[in-house]
């Protein structure tokens, strides 16, 4: 696998903004074949319990879409959790593709 991923969480006054980056660290272009209109998803965990998911409350087109990520390039997906309760959490970000999910996670506190 030549995809490397990372996610950051920036805690603001009434929201937490996430930025999930997937980088092609290989020498060849990588095709990302997204399964649907949902290209990447974020889940917030409190311990083992999922307390929020970005895709929740929405439906997505069910057609495949392919994007090519050239060698050395990266693609960033934004997300935002509104009105979070105070606490310590983990955000898990992953691609919704037919290939590797390129999961990334990081801890943050509100």
């Amino acid at each position, binding site marked *: 696998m030549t995809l490397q991923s990372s996610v950051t969480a920036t805690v603001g006054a009434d929201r937490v903004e996430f930025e999930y980056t997937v980088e092609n660290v290989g020498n060849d272009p990588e095709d990302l074949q997204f*399964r649907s209109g*949902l290209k990447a998803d974020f889940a917030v965990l409190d311990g083992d319990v999922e307390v929020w998911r970005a895709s929740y*409350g929405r*439906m*997505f087109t069910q*057609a*495949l879409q392919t994007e090519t990520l050239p060698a050395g390039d990266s693609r960033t997906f934004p997300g935002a959790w509104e009105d979070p309760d105070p606490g310590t959490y983990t955000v898990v970000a992953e691609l919704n593709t037919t290939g590797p999910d390129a999961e990334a996670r990081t801890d943050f506190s509100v």
Partner: protein
Amino acid sequence: MSPESDVSRRTVLKTTGGSLLALGTTGLASADPDDLVRVNVGFKSDRGRRAALDAADEVVRQFNFDALTIRVPRQAATALADRPGVRYVETNGQMQALAQTLPWGIDRVDAEIAHANGDTGAGADIAIVDTGIDTSHPDLQDNLGWAKAFVLCDSSCSQCGPCEVPWDDDNGHGTHVAGIAGAIDNTEGVVGVGPGVTLHAVKVLDCQGRGSYSDISAGIEYAADRGCDVVTLCFGGSHSLTLYDAVRYAYNRGVLLVAAAGNDGPCTDCVAYPAAYDEVVAVCATSSDDSLSSFSSTGPEVELAAPGSGIYSTMCTQGYDTYSGTSMAAPHVAGAGGQLMAHGYTNVEARHRLQSTAEDIGLSSNEQGYGLVDVAAALGHYSGDN
């Protein structure tokens, strides 16, 4: 544009029927640009002659006067008309150049047999509850009825150019779905399962292809209130109580609801909502060899299978494109439902008819449900299952 190309354009426009440009550059740009077409090229200088020869895949005939008959990719034929020294580019007799393509999926579900027997779905109303429909598409325009937008068409993020009307397609998905269900039977582009149906754009998904439970539910409610026969639900997500209420509301008002099973495959027992609701016909996707599309979700809720891999259909900005997904499978079934309801079937009767006439393609019941939808068989025409 140079004066010279002005002249060649006018010359072409003056000619009748067979001219490429007289049929509209849309028609040319639309179908597969790499398709080879046979054209007659008139030139007025050696430069024009060379341009034609250079573009040609094959030279069919060289006249003693200043003209050639060549085989050339469609795209090159269009470009050739504007080249210096070219007097005209005219399609040759048989009109193969602009002939309508029969997409493999339409052929596989035997919709073309229904068309040959005079069944077009005329009188049926199909709501495409989706990202909108390209309102100026030549292969759809004449089939469009009322429309409504529950989300903004957003020119700033549109992948389809500026929004002309609120229910215009800013993503492309809805236009593709619409063409599978009901592209017009004409001399260009593609043909849909029900080329005579009325298509209603109900825009509930944004330019990125996502929509909220509330907006989607409002779109379904609206389509039901307007008396639609069929709605396509080519999206998926998790269970929503509101959406479930909307689905039941529509079903109880006589609407046939057809949804994409989801693209989470290979997986088992993974049909997405709203396809997973009892009131909704869940459609999984197949490839041209009748195998299950690798991405297709499967499960006990799957009711029918339909073509979903490599499906050529209408695209926004008056174009055409090939997409894969259970989103492409569902409108084959929706068009079939429209064909039946045009004959007076209720939503429940149409559903049972589609089930009982589906073709067994040898997949498990969680993969194919009752089988591959068969439009001709559903309408009582002999299809030979070819």
